[in-house]
């Protein structure tokens, strides 16, 4: 009997972990990645909260397992735009032609970062000193330069929470949940890089939900002297010499506040990456176009299978904002559901 085959769309953490788990269960795995390199956002990240483990280490260990497994075939630069059901199997469509076929499919297309320039009042894309949290990660891994003078060893830096999250003006009412702890992590990393710097976090609420998060927040205040100011910025404006003046309501003081900064970091939230359009025998994988939603799994809370249709499973952050451990666990759980489906249990 030939081995059953599973196709995975997206080779970020969810796709890579799904591939490893499914290959270990004995399936042939075709792993497709749209970009030229696997790893998703993890490939552009510095360290991970709350233990400050280098992101590269985690990605390397995942990639080693993927590359070492003879049953996993990874293809990069392949954009799967749709799926077609042919009997019990699925055909993967790439620009109107069939790219491959599988007994089951895992959609693991991940999330897109909110485009910071949409919050026009913060001036991202206009003032070089205003960067996104993802851009700060690329600076930390030395793929980009600091936006202030190299001689400046005591920069004043502000981090703005909830950019593109919990914001009806952006159409995103949800909390992206990983940004608060990312801000705390980045504030600490900034203080490690520039011990003489002043770092301010502008927050609405501090949502430190995970084990070790609140502890890290406490450490940021006590050991790294990061200042947390409750209040959203009304705007960022230029202040000469490439600096940025920010204005906010200091809601704990009940007074307006202003501050001039050398760098302003916008903690961008997560948005959907793909909006699948499910029809009778086909599924169109549309690029998220501002009004899309995260992939909804009916009955997910009561433990229903993580699928859109029998045989089409969904894993990871394409279902909604998630942290890395959640994504990896979800990928493992999805692999188990998929096994039950293919062995006729589900």
């Amino acid at each position, binding site marked *: 009997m030939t081995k059953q085959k599973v196709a995975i769309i997206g080779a970020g953490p969810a796709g890579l972990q799904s591939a490893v788990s499914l290959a270990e269960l004995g399936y042939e795995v075709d792993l497709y990645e749209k970009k030229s390199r696997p790893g998703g956002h993890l490939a552009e990240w510095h360290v991970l909260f709350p233990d400050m483990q280098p992101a590269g280490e985690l990605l390397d260990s995942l990639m080693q397992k993927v590359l070492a497994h003879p049953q996993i075939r990874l293809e990069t630069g392949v954009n799967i735009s749709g799926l077609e059901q042919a009997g019990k199997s699925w055909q993967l469509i790439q620009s109107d032609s069939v790219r491959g076929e599988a007994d089951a499919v895992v959609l693991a297309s991940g999330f897109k970062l909110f485009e910071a320039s949409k919050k026009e009042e913060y001036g991202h894309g206009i003032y070089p000193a205003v960067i996104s949290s993802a851009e700060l990660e690329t600076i930390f891994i030395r793929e980009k330069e600091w936006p202030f003078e190299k001689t400046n060893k005591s920069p004043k830096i502000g981090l703005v929470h909830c950019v593109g999250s919990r914001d009806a003006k952006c159409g995103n009412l949800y909390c992206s949940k990983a940004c608060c702890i990312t801000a705390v992590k980045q504030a600490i990393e900034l203080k490690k890089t520039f011990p003489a710097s002043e770092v301010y976090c502008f927050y609405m609420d*501090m949502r430190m939900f995970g084990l070790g998060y609140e502890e890290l927040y406490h450490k940021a205040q*006590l050991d790294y002297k990061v200042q947390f100011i409750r209040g959203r910025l009304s705007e960022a404006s230029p202040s000469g010499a490439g600096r940025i003046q920010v204005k906010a309501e200091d809601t704990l003081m009940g007074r307006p506040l202003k*501050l*001039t900064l050398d760098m302003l970091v916008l903690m961008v939230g997560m948005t959907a990456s793909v909006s699948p359009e499910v029809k009778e025998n086909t599924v169109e994988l549309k690029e998220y176009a501002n009004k899309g939603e995260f992939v909804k799994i009916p009955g997910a809370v009561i433990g229903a299978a993580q699928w859109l249709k029998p045989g089409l499973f969904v894993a990871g952050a394409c279902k909604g904002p998630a942290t890395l451990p959640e994504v990896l666990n979800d990928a493992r759980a999805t692999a188990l559901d998929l096994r039950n489906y293919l062995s006729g249990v589900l």
Partner: protein
Amino acid sequence: MTKQYFGFSVLEQRSVNLDSEMPAELESLYQKEPSLRACIACGNCAAVCSAGHFAEMQFYRLNVMARRGLLHEMVGKAAACMLCGRCQMSCPRGVNIRHAVLMMSQL
């Protein structure tokens, strides 16, 4: 500074200006009581405050004033504390409030 003709303005008299130099006493206050930095302004201290029944005593607000460099305002208000220590028993962040407020009032 050049006047700006766009955007939102800030009422100068009321505004907190974090660009201004922080008073030197602030650092010494933090050195005397480092746990002050851990405050998250939850307000538990004020909710259990016995002096708060009689006077305007909200410890977390004193701390916010200190952080913004408004020591003059802070010192005056710290005098209302009776050092009973109820706040300290309820502080979720473990701030050594009694000592902190004593140091504040003696600045």
